């Protein structure tokens, strides 16, 4: 049946790290540890839950995941960080329903010193082909293609690189993620891109190589020689990426 819907080649794809279905979802839910999540979620090898594809498709409800998390801790506050992340999804969905026009249009103008018209509308080929020459960025793009999943930090790094280093409109990056992520949701995805871009936040999100090194393990190449455009202070990056803004941005 699966092959009839998606074709035999796709049905035989063994590279997918997350399987569909309620049974896989329940296994993932049983494995969550809200306390460990709160302590390590920012790290790429942290105790993240990978529940997002199941929540996206309604295979699990936010309510049942929250209830499960609360039942696994002695005090609700121990699960607060985890439940707050569930609340982000509820928040994005409420915006989607109330303000559907916000999903593909800039909620606010860019706060980067550039007008939207100064951004490219298409993703550069080297980004699509994971050959930007920035080692960690190319690895994150490879992960996206290989697994259909990215840790939230990797998503933010890629989004910031595309929008601020390459000056590409967030919409082009949002479509790219939607096409590859198993948890692709126009509200969560696009509004997060807008948050990075600064069209739905007070300032643009940027990062540097020190930040990548802090949150990733040894499997990500964070050598300075292989990531030169990221190997700068926030002050210097602000000057280079947003030359029209007043200094002390970061």
């Amino acid at each position: 049946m699966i092959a009839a819907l998606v074709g035999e080649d796709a049905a035989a794809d063994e590279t997918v790290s997350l399987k569909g279905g309620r049974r896989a979802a329940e296994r993932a839910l049983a494995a969550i540890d809200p306390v460990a999540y709160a302590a390590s979620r920012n790290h790429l090898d942290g105790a993240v839950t990978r529940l997002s594809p199941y929540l996206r498709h309604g295979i699990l409800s936010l309510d049942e995941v929250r209830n499960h998390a609360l039942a696994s801790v002695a005090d609700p506050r121990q699960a607060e960080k985890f439940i707050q992340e569930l609340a982000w999804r509820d928040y994005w969905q409420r915006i989607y329903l109330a303000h559907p026009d916000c999903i593909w249009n800039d909620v606010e103008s860019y706060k980067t010193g550039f007008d939207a018209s100064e951004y490219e509308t298409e993703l550069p080929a080297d980004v699509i082909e994971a050959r930007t020459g920035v080692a960690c960025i190319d690895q994150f793009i490879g992960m996206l293609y290989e697994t259909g999943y990215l840790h939230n930090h990797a998503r933010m790094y890629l989004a910031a690189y595309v929008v601020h280093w390459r000056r590409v409109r967030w919409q082009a990056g949002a479509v790219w993620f939607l096409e590859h992520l198993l948890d692709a949701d126009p509200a969560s995805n696009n509004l997060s891109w807008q948050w990075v871009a600064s069209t739905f936040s007070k300032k643009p999100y940027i990062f540097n190589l020190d930040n990548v090194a802090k949150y990733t393990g040894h499997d990500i190449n964070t050598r300075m020689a292989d990531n030169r455009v990221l190997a700068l202070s926030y002050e210097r990056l602000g000057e280079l990426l947003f030359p029209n803004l007043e200094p002390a941005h970061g």
Partner: protein
Amino acid sequence: MADLIWLHEGALRRTHPVFVAAAPGTAAIFVWDRARFVTGHVGARRQLFIAETLAELEIEIHEGDAAVLLPQLVAAHGADRLLVPTSPDPAIIGQIAAIRQAMPQGAVEQVEDTAFVTLSREPDLARFFRYWNKARKSALRPHGV
């Protein structure tokens, strides 16, 4: 009154309240809508994920335009009411509107998912923490009550 359930890709589970709202034993249908997958940027990997989920759900699958097929399927099943989980997706909302047009008044009913939080009024959505400050108390309680 005989019912039929349309499960779309945002509500793929048998514990969704739409099954409680329907008469016992009501059939559920998924429409594999390739055109909506294209406009919604649903890539091959996600299509596989959805197909794997459907295989476990053991529901009827039809291929085509949901807005065109569903009125026909309701009739073919001898049903007179179509139940649909609510969705914020404008494409699905548009298809529900088209189905309503094609069916007798009141024959299409949308069913909300279980609420995550209970709020006394619509929250300010301009920034997440404005919402969270209102939602936090409820979110940290079982069933959000």
